């Protein structure tokens, strides 16, 4: 489309308010943080600060940052993968197989657990995952001698807690993308002799890709910065980069280092999505 003056105004009018808001409350403060990440002292310290690259160098020179980064990314990938494996079929079922009032009801029921406090949910998970916890006691009372559940303070516990926290994003973004696909397109594929798998792979999956991408972005990105679930559910097994960033603000009062680490995290995210972007564009067809 060639942007005429009218479309230009439409674009400006539609995106302007949201981005002005973001600029005033997030981009400006974060720009200040970006500047801070190149200083050797926090702005609240009375001595004058000077320019340095030391905070970024620290990331590469300290031995523990690389394993922390790798684990954070791995955690993000596992959680996103499980959310997709569990969430996509659920979204498909809801979009294509459930009709009538139930559809709206289930749609709402999927988000509702989100309206509770994350910390309370995590502590509830500790009750579920530990031996002698609620589920364990219930299982043992029905089937005495059944193997005990003891997942607490392990890597799987962290994954379960995080998948639970982020699954609704995947289900609903996939749902709204899948639901927009006209059934007649699927029928057309079928009547042209394509089997179920081919129809799915060639028609449904590409058309629902925007939903998968949105869901993956909303899951992967926050998970790699997470620290609460790994800390409480992981015991000693949940070390993440997010925890170390937090420590730069609460223990060492080294804001410049904390800021630098955050921007490294952001850069990793942008690089990953930058690599995926052309692939997705081709696959998704549109956009």
């Amino acid at each position, binding site marked *: 489309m060639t942007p005429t003056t009218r479309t230009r105004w439409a674009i400006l009018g539609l995106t302007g308010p949201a981005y002005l808001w973001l600029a005033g409350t997030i981009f400006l403060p974060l720009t200040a943080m970006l500047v801070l990440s190149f200083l050797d002292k926090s702005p609240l310290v009375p001595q004058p600060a000077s320019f340095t690259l030391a905070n970024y160098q620290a990331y590469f020179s300290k*031995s*523990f940052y690389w394993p922390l980064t790798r684990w954070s990314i791995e955690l993000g990938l596992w959680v996103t993968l499980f959310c997709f494996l569990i969430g996509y079929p659920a979204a498909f079922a809801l979009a294509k197989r459930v009709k009538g009032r139930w559809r709206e009801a289930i749609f709402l029921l999927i988000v509702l657990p989100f309206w509770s406090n994350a910390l309370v949910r995590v502590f509830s998970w500790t009750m579920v995952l530990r031996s*002698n916890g609620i589920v364990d006691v219930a299982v043992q009372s029905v089937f005495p001698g059944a193997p005990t559940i003891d997942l607490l303070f392990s890597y799987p516990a962290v994954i379960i807690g995080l998948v639970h926290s982020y699954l609704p994003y995947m289900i609903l973004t996939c749902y709204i993308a899948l639901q927009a696909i006209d059934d007649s397109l699927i029928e057309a594929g079928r009547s042209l002799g394509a089997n179920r798998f081919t129809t799915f792979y060639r028609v449904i999956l590409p058309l629902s890709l925007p939903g998968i991408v949105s869901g993956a972005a909303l899951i992967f990105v926050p998970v790699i910065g997470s620290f609460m679930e790994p*800390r*409480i559910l*992981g015991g000693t097994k*949940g070390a993440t980069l997010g925890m170390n960033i937090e420590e730069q603000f609460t223990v060492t*009062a080294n804001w410049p280092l904390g800021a630098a680490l955050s921007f490294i995290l952001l850069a990793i995210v942008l690089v990953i999505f930058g690599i995926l972007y052309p692939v997705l564009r081709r696959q998704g067809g549109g956009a």
Partner: protein
Amino acid sequence: MTGKTIDKMMSLKPVSRRRFVAGASALSLGAGLGMAPFVRRASANTEVKVLNWQGYGTDEAWALEAFKAATGLDVVHEYYNSESEMITKLQTNPGAYDVIVTNSAWNARASDLGVIQPIDTAQIGHFADLNPSFRDSPLLGTGGNVFGVAWVWGITAIAYSTEVYAEAPNSIEVLWDAKNAKRVSVRDDAIEMVNFAAIATGQDMNHPADLGKVKEKLLALKPNVALLWSSEDEWNKQFQAKAFDVSIYWSGSALRSKTNFQLPVGFVVPDEGAVGWFDGLAIGKDAPNVEGAHKFINYMIDPTYYVDWATKVGAPASANSKAMAALPDSDPSKAFYSDEAAIKRLQFMAPLSDEERQAYSDLWTEVKTEFAQ
């Protein structure tokens, strides 16, 4: 949006910075619209604003009622979750707080930054009764000025399950004991962990000469550590669920776990020593109610209040000798905090330089990374 609200909003602006304001506050006008009913009316002379950890003595409902009955002052709280956050809050909200609870290791930093003001000890009736070793500590005042009134002190040492241990474990080595595989919990706190490993390796706890030994000692904890706790709440819940038997814990919290929650907790200062700390009460720079602040501080070191706090809730030791003497002899904390031999074994937390904090934090992160492998 009313002009009054705008004024109020602008009045939050510090006196010294500029210009930029117009654009940003135009944004906030839109947001503030309709929120006017929520804006709290300040009433400086009938309120004392306190900045403290939540649930740490200053915010017990019965105490605030008693204080109000005596002085007519309401107490409003704001909380912090780490000492460096406390400093940030003081710096970014000048004139917002009357009384601030400052740790002995942080009071000097606050006074250096000019965010707290000298205290007029003549206005504090109980000041003379304070234990001189805390009252006159250089950590709470400089150059003849008192920047913090010694309030309470406590011990970070070893808590254990009395169901598992018939007798108190007397050595710090219990944390490293091979019998305790996966039965130990320590706090996810770099400074505290370095302190303990330094004590266990016979070094100065605040400034250990050999950090290599400290790291080695901490790495050796790996097979024993079941979880890293980060709040008293988490500690209680996990202890109740028997997730660990022995742990590094705070004295006041151990007493609370025992009195409030009837948990089978024992607490011991091991032979090698443990961490001691004390907290002061400070007055914020440009505090809106300086007179009320002095009254509240005096109330906080009052023996009657302390006895109630210690017996009803569970508290660290008071810095007021008379308050300690007023505790009923049956109270477990009285015997505990007056065990002179144990107190002699303590090393007290001292201020650390930024470089030391960073080094300890890096060391602990390295150890945790090894734990997670």
